[in-house]
């Protein structure tokens, strides 16, 4: 047992830190550290920089153009990027559809799509949830009918994150309605610019346009965009979800948020003293910090032992999102009444939401409300518990 990073891992961390320090645009870092809203260009600029460095897909195997980073190196990369205030990499292409294409995709799909993801040419989104199919994902109704060398897709997806920017969507579609619900599902890659694709914003209660409804009306998709075999989509979907959940853990970002929380707690006052010195607040903060240490240690225990996510990914998703939510809650609480003023303009452009409020306060209540989603998406935390109960505990 040796819980230190190897000299190679430390050197790797230093190299990432130096690159991020030299290259991450200051305006983007300021937005992230100030919890302000990002726009497409922020992500694209940062991901382009990483792509040019060959690091956007550094964790991919070398045979697919990655650097073959170990899971621990990938974690260090994530941690350094997050600490500096880099935006979270959009995971849909990079970490979700890419492993599926690597494992199950055709040579053409691997050649074409993987290189475009690696080079940040396509923005991908995820077509899983439907209005009637949330936790019961396998009940999905979007149909894809085979006609010659094409599929014709009709139906609706929802909660589609950043679909308004997307070039491609990977979709679970029903290709056979006559068999058991899990067996009639296929995994299809669809060009968002195809005729018949409509994106409609779904504004959430923090007034953020992050998710969308996506409608498919007789959308024609070349059959070569079917991944693997028809009817095997559910298997691929579950394979992918393991990657999604590991990604949601968010240890790097939570460590950064903890530091920001400590800074805010030292700026706010209670009973004439810095809030950070208040015994009650301090104890609650310490408890979250301890939970985060446990989460990080468990993550490293999992990462150092294997390279593909198993059911333990569900444990990390639950524990990771609980820490994230606790942090957003304490951060909002730290503000006291200054949490209440709300201004979309402040969240988007910076500055305070009220004349006497600090600028850092403006986004924090909206962020708290926004962060309730993390225990809902990626398979709600209750679904994760079902998965663990079934696959780990055998109940």
């Amino acid at each position, binding site marked *: 047992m040796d*819980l230190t990073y190897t000299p190679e891992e430390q050197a790797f961390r230093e190299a990432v830190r130096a690159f991020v320090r030299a290259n991450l645009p200051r305006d983007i870092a300021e937005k992230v550290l100030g919890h302000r809203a990002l726009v497409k260009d922020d992500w694209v600029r940062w991901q382009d920089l990483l792509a040019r460095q060959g690091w956007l897909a550094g964790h991919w195997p070398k045979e697919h153009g990655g650097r073959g980073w170990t899971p621990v190196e990938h974690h260090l990369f994530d941690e350094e990027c997050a600490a500096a205030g880099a935006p979270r990499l959009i995971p849909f292409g990079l970490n979700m559809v890419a492993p599926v294409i690597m494992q199950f995709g055709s040579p053409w799909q691997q050649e074409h799509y993987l290189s475009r993801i690696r080079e940040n040419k396509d923005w991908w989104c995820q077509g899983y949830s439907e209005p009637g199919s949330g936790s019961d994902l396998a009940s999905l109704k979007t149909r894809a009918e085979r006609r010659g060398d094409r599929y014709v897709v009709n139906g609706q997806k929802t909660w589609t994150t950043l679909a308004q920017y997307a070039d491609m969507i990977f979709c679970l579609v029903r290709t056979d309605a006559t068999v058991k619900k899990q067996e009639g599902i296929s995994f299809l890659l669809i060009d968002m610019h195809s005729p018949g694709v409509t994106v409609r914003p779904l504004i959430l209660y923090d007034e953020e346009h992050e998710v969308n409804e996506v409608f498919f009306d007789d959308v024609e998709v070349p059959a070569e965009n079917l991944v693997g075999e028809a009817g095997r989509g559910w298997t691929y979907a579950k394979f992918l979800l393991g990657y999604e959940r590991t990604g949601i853990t968010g240890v790097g970002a939570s460590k950064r948020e903890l530091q920001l929380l400590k800074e805010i707690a030292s700026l706010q006052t209670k009973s004439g003293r810095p809030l950070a010195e208040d015994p009650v607040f301090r104890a609650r903060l310490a408890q979250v910090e301890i939970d985060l240490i446990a989460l990080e240690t468990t993550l490293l225990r999992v990462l150092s032992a294997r390279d593909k996510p198993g059911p333990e990914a569900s444990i990390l998703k639950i524990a990771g999102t609980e820490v994230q939510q606790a942090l957003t809650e304490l951060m909002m609480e730290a503000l006291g009444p200054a949490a209440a003023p709300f201004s979309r303009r402040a969240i988007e452009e910076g500055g305070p939401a009220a004349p006497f409020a600090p600028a850092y306060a403006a986004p924090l209540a909206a962020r708290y409300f926004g962060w309730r989603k993390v225990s809902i998406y990626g398979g709600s935390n209750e679904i994760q518990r079902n998965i*663990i109960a079934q696959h780990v505990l055998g109940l």
Partner: protein
Amino acid sequence: MDFSLSEEQQLLRDAIARFVASEYSFAARTQAIATPRGWSERMWAQFAELGLLGVPFPEAHGGFGGTAVDVMVVLQELGRGMVVEPYLATVVLGGGVVNLAGAASQKQDILPRLAAGKWLLALAHGEPQSRYDLHDVSTTARREGGGYVLNGRKAVVLHGATADTLIVTGRTGGGQRDRQGITLFLVDAKSRGVGVTDYRTIDGLRAADVALDGVHVGAGAVLGPVDAGLPLLERAVDLGAAALCAEAVGVIEALNAATLEYLKTRQQFGQPIGRFQALQHRAVDMLIHAEQSKSMACLAAVKAQSDDAAERRRAVSAAKSLVGRAGRAVAKEAIQLHGGMGVTNELPAAHLAKRLTMIDFWLGDSSFHTERFATG
């Protein structure tokens, strides 16, 4: 980054697991608890034979030169078997203080006998008012002639009544809560003026209240530096807290296994109760507590050996805080999921739950360690 156990550690783990499974039945444990001393000397002799009692001590003093990770391996398995023998008191805490603070002659005098199972120690540091503060010492150690005279009261001394030697903290200087002025003493339990009252603890162990009324000890009884014993005591207690985290992991895993078995076999409404989602989710939370505790026990074991006191304190307190919280949560859930059976005296799981809950009350509970973590 490597969380795996070495081959030797795996062999050690398997050997103890085999021993506990074959020799340390629940019935044998219950029987041992009912004896006057509260644990089994025969079992202790077998621990010595297996080499368990010398694990953390240098080879030069009859030990095996093991690390805190080796101790973690031992305690996890002892926890799984709910072992009531004084391993923590004698080997980890008592032996730990002697090993850290003792002069070579003191180590040579005590550790080989201890490793052979022929000598027992107890750490008598707590006082009625001190709660978990190691620096809160009102017991006085007055210089007289070439030695000292000890007066004071030591409360809830783990396995205090069976110890041959008590390790006592006494004030040679400073006020009751000063960090300076604390000295560690080796006190023969048979010394005149030592009054020991033995009692049971709720979780099947023994503890004692120890009255020190004008106990004379020689200069050779001083363990470590005069007036500056506290840092060494803190170090030993951190090793003890890490060991308790490991024990808790063993108990949690045993308790989770027992609970899972019950969920799968207990039938109500025509099906195993484990089919009910309300219970499934609670069982999952117990698993998450187990995994997080396991991670923290590893972290505590590795960092408890650190020479950097701040790093050591931070990691051990984070671990003891989390494991204390997790353990109490698991114990409550296990009792609840067992229904009425969970509160019966016949059920091993009920005793696992008691031990797991009370682990939080030794060497600093979750609140204490959260505060210690926060204040550095």
